[in-house]
């Protein structure tokens, strides 16, 4: 059974529901299983997460493998959840009311502090994409820049940053996309990729799928074949997967 964490997109003001009847496990901020739900509009207060407590809420850091080649894990089973997934899930921290009230923010920075879980995250993607003739890993600014390059290096692909406007020097192509309020733009370097190349798009999280769709369009406009989108976390209630249409999506942790 997949670990579930109570998290919602930071870009959508969906109010969280959580159980107050179960004591949180000592490695999680909030209970991980469906339980009695109460709505935050009731008189009950949302617990405020104190950052200085975070080290007590996560397992101690493990000494991680240093030589990735010597310690290459075997291919995970397709049928059951890979045992590495639960550690990855519990290394992700939930921050309530960020960036605004009602949003339960998924914070992967704690995953990056857990050397074994971060290593496992990368390994899971690398195992899936190695040997699949993928020559481009496109990472979305800024957290896609953290996961993309290690994957690209391990599978022998280029890393292409997909950036906010006016960050990339030289000639770019850009794609506008909708936000909850207004629009934003994503840019890619002209000439970074060639028509016919096979690409992976990576970001830390998929919510509504708007950003990923913009990245897909940018790459397809120059004739690249987007093989799959890959994220650490999916928020399935926001239906990002449907928005990607026929583009496959691979995620490690699915959160409701």
């Amino acid at each position, binding site marked *: 059974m997949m670990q579930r964490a109570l998290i919602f997109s930071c870009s959508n003001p969906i109010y969280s529901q959580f159980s107050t009847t179960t004591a949180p496990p000592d490695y999680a901020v909030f209970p991980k299983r469906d339980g009695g739900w109460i709505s935050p509009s009731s008189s009950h207060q949302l617990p405020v*997460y*104190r*950052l*200085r407590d*975070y*080290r007590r809420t996560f397992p101690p*850091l493990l*000494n*991680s*493998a*240093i030589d*990735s080649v010597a310690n290459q894990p075997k291919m995970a089973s397709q049928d059951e959840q890979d045992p590495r997934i639960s550690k990855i899930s519990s290394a992700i*921290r939930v*921050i309530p009311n*960020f*960036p605004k009230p009602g949003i339960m*923010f998924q*914070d992967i*920075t704690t995953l*990056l*502090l*857990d*050397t074994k879980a*971060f*290593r496992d995250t*990368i390994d899971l993607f690398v195992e899936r994409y190695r040997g699949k003739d993928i020559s481009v890993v496109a990472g979305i*600014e*800024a*957290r896609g*820049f*953290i*996961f993309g*390059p*290690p994957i*690209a*290096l391990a599978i*022998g*692909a*280029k*890393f*292409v*940053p997909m*950036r906010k406007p*006016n*960050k*990339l*020097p*030289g000639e770019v192509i850009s794609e506008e996309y909708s936000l909850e309020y207004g629009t934003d733009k994503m840019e890619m*370097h002209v*000439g*970074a990729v060639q028509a016919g190349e096979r690409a992976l798009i990576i970001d830390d999280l998929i919510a509504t799928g708007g950003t990923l769709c913009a990245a897909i369009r940018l790459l397809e406009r120059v004739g690249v074949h987007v093989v799959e989108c890959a994220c650490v976390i999916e928020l399935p209630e926001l239906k990002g997967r449907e928005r990607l249409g026929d583009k496959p999506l691979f995620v490690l942790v699915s959160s409701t």
Partner: protein
Amino acid sequence: MFAAENGLKGDPRLQAISDAIRVVPHFPKQGIMFQDITTLLLDHKAFQHTIDIFVDRYRDMDISVIAGVEARGFMFGPSIALAIGAKFVPLRKPKKLPGEVIAEAYELEYGTDCLEMLVGAIPPGERVIVIDDLVATGGTLSAAIRLLERVGAEVVECACVVGLREVKGQRRLNGKPLYILVEPREIDGCC
């Protein structure tokens, strides 16, 4: 200090790295010859060399944290961290990190900017390398050093792929050693 003066003189990897960096003239404004490392990321071999050189240097220095400066420090830092078994800590622009942060302001040519780090990310006494793609005046790296020292971390060294004129001859920044792979390319145009 530059890698070529520090044990890697004549190493062909440094030439490959330098050749893979593109110069974009007059970006972000007139007179600036921008050192664009995105072309390095497109060259898998040269990108691997870049990471390998840093990993070889830091693997046995008992480093427990790689701190990367947003956003291009994110492109290099995590791969190094993974290879040496260190944590990766992002140093971010304001309001990006959730939860409790500490902030350090620094000067720009016009005005100021700010770097933020998660409180509690680094216990005191841990040994840290700060990484960014490029060092120019050293303003951003100095702010990173101050931020890390405020939480009691030990900044062992600052590491950059490219080091500009202003830092040539400088072996230290804020008293911390500086390790740089290559000098800026002089010529215009793509590699």
